[in-house]
């Protein structure tokens, strides 16, 4: 079975919400929609106080290059255009909407029929992705229209869909495969057409045999979709690791996947691409796992983007267990702890993971014993222990020479460290320092 060559770890999978079918989360009374839900500049609000909006109406327009449109996930009246604190307490521009009914834009096809045929030209597809505000749902929320506009002189040969879901606990992609396999395959075909590549590869880790089987059966009806079962190893879903696992190619230091002829998208993205192109539905919903070992029940939800963490917790489990240590948005490896539970969810959120106090606590740090486990675990072939020392002593130039910027912050080094050194934190600090140094030199 295929997998990437270098490094990697295998954390406890904990896919305890695997069998929870996707439920629909009710729409809350008040909605706060952040304008900054993607990588890049925030969208510019195009509504004012008092405006009536419908579900799917454009409320934030992408004016910068690296930006994506934001649509209203609810219908109602705009209360104010102001700022709001996001999940990490940082202030972001936002639009506040009072929810009234659930009136959708007439252009959106809400029928359950599956539409297979897509007559659009590649350019039209990319334009539509931009219009519908589609961003990558793997975590980085990179605007899709930029990814699928291949720069001149470069040629895409492979389209790779990441359905590895290598992060522990997350099951939203798995549920999408089980329940919407056909839509996903149509979405992948559309992306394949947009790129003009002969084959699309969907990489699925072998701990999801039912999904592999289901996708293989569905993919038979489509031309040029290959299902690639992959060995279970974290971080299989990282762009460069997935390329290596599926094609055997290696993205050189400082280069992008397109430099080796690859484009990688998340499975969730291909589902939202299907909805955007075939159903005219903008990206206004997330599929989100609510999970945790100590929770009374496990769930997978389709949630309107902008529903707050508190709303989700209240609806799914009532209230947090008394022993809760952390609420994490994302998986245990790369997810971030949520500080402000009143914050709205944003595009790309894949889970609300509730961790017990004992489970969430970091173990006390001890001295490095030079065992080299972090080097063996690093999927990028870097030397985390070295960066730790260099960053501590402010030897930033040297850290740069040792390719600190290649780090994908997957957390394997910290995970594998027997001394519990916060290596990933140190490297992230080092990367910031290197970037600041490079900016100062310019």
């Amino acid at each position, binding site marked *: 079975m295929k997998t990437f060559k270098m490094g990697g770890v295998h954390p406890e999978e904990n896919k305890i919400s695997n069998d929870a079918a996707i439920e629909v989360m009710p729409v809350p009374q008040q909605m706060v929609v952040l304008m900054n839900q993607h990588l890049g500049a925030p969208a510019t609000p195009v509504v004012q106080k008092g405006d009536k909006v419908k579900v799917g109406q454009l409320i934030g327009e992408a004016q910068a290059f690296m930006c994506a449109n934001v649509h209203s996930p609810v219908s109602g009246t705009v209360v104010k255009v102001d700022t709001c604190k996001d999940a990490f307490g940082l202030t972001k521009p936002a639009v506040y909407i009072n929810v009234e009914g659930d009136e959708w834009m007439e252009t959106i096809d809400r029928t359950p029929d599956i539409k297979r045929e897509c007559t659009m030209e590649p350019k039209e597809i990319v334009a539509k992705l931009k219009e519908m505000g589609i961003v990558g749902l793997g975590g980085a929320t990179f605007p899709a229209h930029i990814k699928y506009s291949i720069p001149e002189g470069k040629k895409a040969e492979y389209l790779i869909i990441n359905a590895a879901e290598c992060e522990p606990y997350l099951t939203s992609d798995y549920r999408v495969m089980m329940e919407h396999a056909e839509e996903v395959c149509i979405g992948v075909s559309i992306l394949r057409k947009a790129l003009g590549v002969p084959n699309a590869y969907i990489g699925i880790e072998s701990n999801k045999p039912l999904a592999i089987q289901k996708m293989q059966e569905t993919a038979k009806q489509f031309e040029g979709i290959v299902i690639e079962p992959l060995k279970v190893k974290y971080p299989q879903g990282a762009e460069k690791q997935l390329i290596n696992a599926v094609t055997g190619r290696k993205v050189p230091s400082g280069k992008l996947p397109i430099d080796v002829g690859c484009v990688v998208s998340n499975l969730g993205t291909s589902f939202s691409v299907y909805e955007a192109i075939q159903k005219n539905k903008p990206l206004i919903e997330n599929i989100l796992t609510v999970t945790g070992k100590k929770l009374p029940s496990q769930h997978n939800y389709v949630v309107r983007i902008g529903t707050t963490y508190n709303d989700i917790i209240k609806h799914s489990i009532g209230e947090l267990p008394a022993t809760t240590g952390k609420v994490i948005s994302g998986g245990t490896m790369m997810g971030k702890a949520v500080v402000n539970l009143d914050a709205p969810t944003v595009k790309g959120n894949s889970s609300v993971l509730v961790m017990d106090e004992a489970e969430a606590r970091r173990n006390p740090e001890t001295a490095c014993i030079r065992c080299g486990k972090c080097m063996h675990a690093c999927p990028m072939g870097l030397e985390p222990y070295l960066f730790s020392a260099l960053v501590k002593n402010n030897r930033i130039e040297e850290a740069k020479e040792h390719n600190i910027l290649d780090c994908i912050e997957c957390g394997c080094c910290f995970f594998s460290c027997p001394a519990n050194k916060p290596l990933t934190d140190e490297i992230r600090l080092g990367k*910031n320092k290197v970037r600041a140094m490079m900016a100062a030199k310019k």
Partner: protein
Amino acid sequence: MTQQILIAVLVLGVIGAFFAVVLYFVAQKFKVVEDPLIDEVAEVLPGANCGGCGKAGCRAFAEACVSQGNLDGLRCAPGGDAVAQKIAQLLGCAVEQGEPQVAVVRCHPANCGEKRRSNYDGLRSCAFQNTVYTGESGCPFGCLGCGDCVAACQFDAIHMDPETGTPVVDEAKCTACGACAKACPRRIIELRNKGKKDRRVYVSCVNKEKGAQAMKTCANACIGCGKCAKVCPMEAITVADNLSYIDYTKCIACRKCVVECPTHAIVDVNFPAPAKKPEAPKPAEAPAAPAAQAPVPEAPKAQPVAAEAQKAQ
């Protein structure tokens, strides 16, 4: 036997003489001409290599002084005026007397420590924590409490107060080199003039959020109401971005603003404790006479002043 010794001495002597000649010529050829003045200036400097002057170290500062020939724009903060005088003597130039400064931490210590909204268990580094989230207090502008400033200080002049979790400057030791101000990722620490009798008035907050929001995170936040600016007789206070700032070059420490501030964000340090109730703050200098009855009479330096908080931009 004697012959053998003689041969050995001769051979070694000849080799020694040969290399002495070679070394002499090499030394002549590769001689680095260096102004002996640099050494003399370097000798005068404190030698802490704190980097407060903006140069790589004390030697680099000495080189800069000598090559420039005067002290314009060059100042060794730890050395202060005494060192400046000595260097000026060596260089034979005039020196401007600088106002002595001190580092001031502009975040209200009274309010940190309570009301932690979260617990941070990541890397103990303010620079890193600043990139992750707002910090434990929930204030996006406030002190993060990991002590980057403490680590940066070469003079052991700044320490974390374990109770409040914010740094406290030891005024007696602080040389105003500015290393802590540079290390603070939120620019909370500022160098301000020490002021007469070490008495200073400053806004102990750098929060630029709108008033209502700032109040939610911290009861002592500056809400940008502008009352202080109205009451200031010297027009030393400016309010920008919902934040007030006192220009220490104009401030006469009359403390009118301290009384006026509704959130007590403006603090005064080293003033005598109010005996009864400070009678209407006097317009000019802090009352000179009452200082004698103050609990901090002479040599107030020995007593670390309560935390200093101050602002930067």
